[in-house]
């Protein structure tokens, strides 16, 4: 399938370097997820890791030259990450997810 324009080896190599840098930044965020002094630091670190994952998956899809396979996964994961962060924030704010008295 010939979907690339230009010299494929150079640009895909650059994508791979960019992916390595994003992975390094994910590891740096993991440091904050482990050692955040409050629980809110950990929640925001996990949300940031989720966004970076959702953007590194299409990049890997282009590296494998089958991007159509990976983009749906990345869209679903971005949604999942967002909803998960909202649920954890709601629980931390109220102490419960829904009130049993309503």
């Amino acid at each position: 399938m010939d979907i690339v324009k230009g010299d494929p080896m150079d640009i895909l190599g650059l994508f791979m370097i960019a992916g390595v840098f994003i992975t390094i930044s994910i590891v740096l965020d993991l440091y904050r997820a482990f050692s955040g002094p409050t629980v809110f630091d950990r929640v925001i670190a996990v949300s940031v890791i989720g966004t970076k994952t959702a953007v590194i998956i299409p990049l890997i899809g282009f590296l494998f030259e089958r991007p159509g396979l990976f983009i749906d996964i990345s869209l679903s994961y971005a949604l999942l990450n967002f909803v998960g962060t909202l649920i954890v924030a709601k629980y931390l704010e109220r102490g419960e997810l829904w009130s049993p008295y309503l």
Partner: protein
Amino acid sequence: MESLPIVSAILVFGGTFFMVVGSIGLIRLPDFYARLHAAGKPDTLGEILIVLGLILYDPFSLITVKLFFLSFFILVANPTATHAVAMAAYKRGLVPWRRDQE
């Protein structure tokens, strides 16, 4: 256009730079609310730049539409998640750091 992969690579590297800046800020900043600044904003912009670079790599296909929806969703969802966590922390009494009370 011949130079389209080069523009795409520049955008992807710009986005990677912002993501690395965001994770460095997540480590360096002294307080939870300041870390929200460093986590939410460069992450969103870096993600939009990377997705824009991937769109320009292979334009006018189904992938373009899906990537566009991914970037639009993250553009709206990241500030909302940031605000949700900040509101939870504020209602739980987390006090922000000020420079004059070392």
